[in-house]
């Protein structure tokens, strides 16, 4: 193709032999808006990291295949070199310095300088900044975007929407920009701001700049993009012209049918109708996982799944209930109100929690398995203590041996440090600790994160076993839809900090895809799935 600006040719990337990108072939043409979508872990960010030559790629042995620009191979070793090729990125989290003016941010480390008598002696770095020229350049970039705000305004007080535009202005200001990557640009914007942004993106494309638009908002993509590429599990599923497809099809392709849901016993699962946990209007201030008003309830004995895309607040729910991040709202547990922001009380009332941050919050990596298993029960319920209030090593040891046998923790001894275990066995230690607390309700977040495939199934089976044999109520949060669907009785999908809907595990893929993208609300009644 003659006007093919950028092409990925047979690009693959592996981390320690684990392929996260497999044989990607993708062409981007000048002036087109190319949408890139996929679930978390589908490979979008890895692909962009390759494009920008991020160190995470080079430090792990580079990649296979080739990236070409205008038919010539590119060799980008750092994000800074990418600028020379005319590639820019508008980040999801703003790369703006709040204490600087718009101009200073736009010109960050690309300041225009002029000579003075000191720089003549002491060198380049002592050249004066030419604020006048810098302001003029900034003005020009802002005008392209139709922003009528003064270029010398501080960024600190700007509305979020404006900040996004400053980011874009910075990229436009770079001379010879040919390709701009937008990473979820509208995720933080209000609807009207998002509309402005999309218009600006269209204008940019019309001026001949190629746009790669990463977003999960399917309605945006269908109204904005020319073509859409869907990635799933590191593979390029399809590249389609947007006018030949529709939201439902895209959603379906994004989630995919590769899930092998083995739920032979699904019909037989029974649990009581009694509500154990009732959450109303929960808001949680967990950075990056804000929860903005969530209602749900959990019935006794059921396994409830919480799913959704990263950054939409699914992880914030468990952290908020447990009081690990500041929360507000109302929670009833076993008919009694549960105090917020008080982890100790929550644990004491019979709730156990396995954090998604297993190595940071979940375990003492340098302490023995024994102590890791016993600690919370010791601290909260006063177990394993001698009459004098000292640790009762014998009881701790006996309990640990029982857990090691019951959960099949592979270790050399119960005195081995937790950090020496594999991910799966570490998770089992966490489960062991939770069981030692004898909880009525178990919160478990990302139970299989960082665990190899063989061990994943063991953990999931263990959870199901707990539910069936001990009748434990479990709330499981996971980024992997497949694992939620394999053991949960019902699944709450969280989108933009709120509950988008509740689905049965055997609901069609498209429904999951649409809900995670927040597109289901806009489709109501219109398109039957």
């Amino acid at each position: 193709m003659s006007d093919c600006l950028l092409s990925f040719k047979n690009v693959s990337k592996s981390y320690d032999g684990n392929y996260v990108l497999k044989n990607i072939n993708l062409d981007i043409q000048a002036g087109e808006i190319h949408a890139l979508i996929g679930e978390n872990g589908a490979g979008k960010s890895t692909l962009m990291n390759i494009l920008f030559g991020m160190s995470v790629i080079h430090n792990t042995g580079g990649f296979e295949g080739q990236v070409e620009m205008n038919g010539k191979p590119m060799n980008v070793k750092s994000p800074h070199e990418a600028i020379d090729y005319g590639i820019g990125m508008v980040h999801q989290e703003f790369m703006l310095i709040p204490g600087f003016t718009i101009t200073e941010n736009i010109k960050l480390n690309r300041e225009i300088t002029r000579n003075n008598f000191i720089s003549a002696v002491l060198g380049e770095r002592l050249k004066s900044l030419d604020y006048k020229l810098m302001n003029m350049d900034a003005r020009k970039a802002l005008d392209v975007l139709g922003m009528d705000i003064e270029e010398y305004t501080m960024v600190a007080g700007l509305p979020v929407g404006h900040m996004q535009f400053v980011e874009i202005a910075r990229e436009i200001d770079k001379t010879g920009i040919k390709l701009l990557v937008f990473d979820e640009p509208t995720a933080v914007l209000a609807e009207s701001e998002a509309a402005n942004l999309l218009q600006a993106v269209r204008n940019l494309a019309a001026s001949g700049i190629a746009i790669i638009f990463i977003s999960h908002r399917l309605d945006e993509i269908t109204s904005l993009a020319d073509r859409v590429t869907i990635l799933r599990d590191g593979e390029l599923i399809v590249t389609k012209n947007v006018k030949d497809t529709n939201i439902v099809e895209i959603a379906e392709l994004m989630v995919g049918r590769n899930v092998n849901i083995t739920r032979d016993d699904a019909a037989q699962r029974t649990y009581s109708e009694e509500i154990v946990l009732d959450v109303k209007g929960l808001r949680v201030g967990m950075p990056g996982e804000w929860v903005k008003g969530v209602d749900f309830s959990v019935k006794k004995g059921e396994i409830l799944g919480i799913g959704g895309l990263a950054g939409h607040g699914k992880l914030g729910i468990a952290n908020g209930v447990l009081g690990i991040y500041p929360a507000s709202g109302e929670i009833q547990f076993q008919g009694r109100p549960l105090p917020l922001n008080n982890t100790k009380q929550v644990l004491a009332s019979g709730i156990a929690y396995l954090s998604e941050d297993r190595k940071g919050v979940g375990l003492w990596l340098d302490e023995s398995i024994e102590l890791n298993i016993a600690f919370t029960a010791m601290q909260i319920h006063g177990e394993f203590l001698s009459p004098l209030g000292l640790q009762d090593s014998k009881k701790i040891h006996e309990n640990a041996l029982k857990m090691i046998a019951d959960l099949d923790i592979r270790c050399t001894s119960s005195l081995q440090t937790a950090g020496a275990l594999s991910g799966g066995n570490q998770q089992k230690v966490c489960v062991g600790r939770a069981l030692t607390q004898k909880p009525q309700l178990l919160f478990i977040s990302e139970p299989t994160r960082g665990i190899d495939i063989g061990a994943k199934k063991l953990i999931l089976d263990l959870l199901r076993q707990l539910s069936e044999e001990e009748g434990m109520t479990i709330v499981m949060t996971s980024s992997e839809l497949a694992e939620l669907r394999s053991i949960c009785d019902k699944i709450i999908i969280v989108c933009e900090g709120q509950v988008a809907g509740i689905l049965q595990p055997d609901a069609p893929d498209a429904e999951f895809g649409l809900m995670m993208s927040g597109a289901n609300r806009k489709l109501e009644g219109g398109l039957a799935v």
Partner: protein
Amino acid sequence: MDKKTLRNLIVSVVIGGFLGFFALRGLFGGGFLGGIVGAILGAGIVYLIAYLLSLFPKLASFLANNIVTVIFVAFVLLGFMVTKEITLKNYIEQLFESVFRNSFLLLSLIIPVIAGLGMNFGIVIGAISAQLALILVRWFDIPSTLGFVACIVASTPLAMLFGWLTGKLYNNTRGQEMIAGLIVSYFASGIYLFILLFAVGGIIPVAAKGAILKEVLTRTQRNLLNPLGVGIRVSVDLGSLKYSLDGIWRLPFVTFTIIAAVGFLAWLVIQYMRKKKNPSLGKSNLLLTIAGSIVCVFFVIISAIVLITKNATYMALRPAPMATIIVIALLAVATNFLLKTKLGQDFRSVGQSQQIARVSGINVDRTRILATVISTVLAAWGMLIFLQNIGTLGTYTQHSQIGMFAVASMLVGGATTSKAAVKNAFIGVLLFQSMFILSPAMGRALFGNPLYGENFRTFMVYGVIAIALGLYIWRGLKAAKNKVEE
């Protein structure tokens, strides 16, 4: 009664009562009864002030944001009220002597703050380089102005080396730079003490073995050494190095006042005009400009009156050391100039966000090291200016107080650990030195013992640092909390 009123009431009773008790006791020499009356009056006044402030929330938040400065202004005013033995002439003389002595040191703290390193307690290491250089120059007995230049030449490479090492350390203790600076300055002091107490004469020979010191060493050299020839004396007289910078050019103090006031006035007006013409430079503040101009004109008139009437008291004020003043002014201008260069912008970028600066291609580590080196070298020069004014070197103690006092002064001047400017240095040095001059007399007036004033000094120095650092953390926590509530 709501929570806020109650809080105001409690604060007024505690602060107003405390101050009022001692103020009245001091003013009227009244006994306990006078103190009680004072306490009640004081509490009332503070409560009234708090109430009035609550009517002007903008002013209140301005004062709250500059609470350290406000406390000091109040303290200095109280000092003027209660002390009778310090005359105005005395006060002016002592104040400006110490202002000229300390300003350069204070200015050396600005750049690290802007580069995000916080208050550089490591300037003590710069002071150590200066003292080493000074001792060398005394050893070779280079006199007067030439000697001062020799001190500068000798101290600079030392300070650069130490600054570079300190910068390296700061890069490895990110987020804890201030504590690292404090500790490394103790460490450096230890090495410095070892060298000067023992190594000189003990390891480094000062004379051929067996030689009689009196025969091989000059008088100055012998005065430098302990009688046995090992170690430097506790106190070293700087001889002709005293006033080697101050003494180059002196003008009558009144003339200096006129020059300074006119210069400041011109600067105010130019700033105002520039900002008015070009709003991108910042907001022009007419009220502040007028207020500043009035103060300047006031000083010009007063000085003129003194000159014309040949007022014996004020004509006799110690002449102003113009060379030192020019050097300080040059550094102030150079600091501001530097901040408008590419390097200055890099300092600011790194100071605001290391991560964003790095992503933008700025070499963060090198920039931070450079900021530390500049600060250390400036501190060394500042220490030389300080010492040439005092005239004697307290070999083993002088450097150690410099860090604390300079940092406290900056904080009093309204700087924080993340924000500092030239004006903070000057406001700070004026207020802090005022406190220093007034507190012994206040101790005598309020408690009947000047020693309490001494204690109070120390209390204020550490108290100010503690309050400023505490406030910084408290504000950070509050900002984080506000963010959650949004």
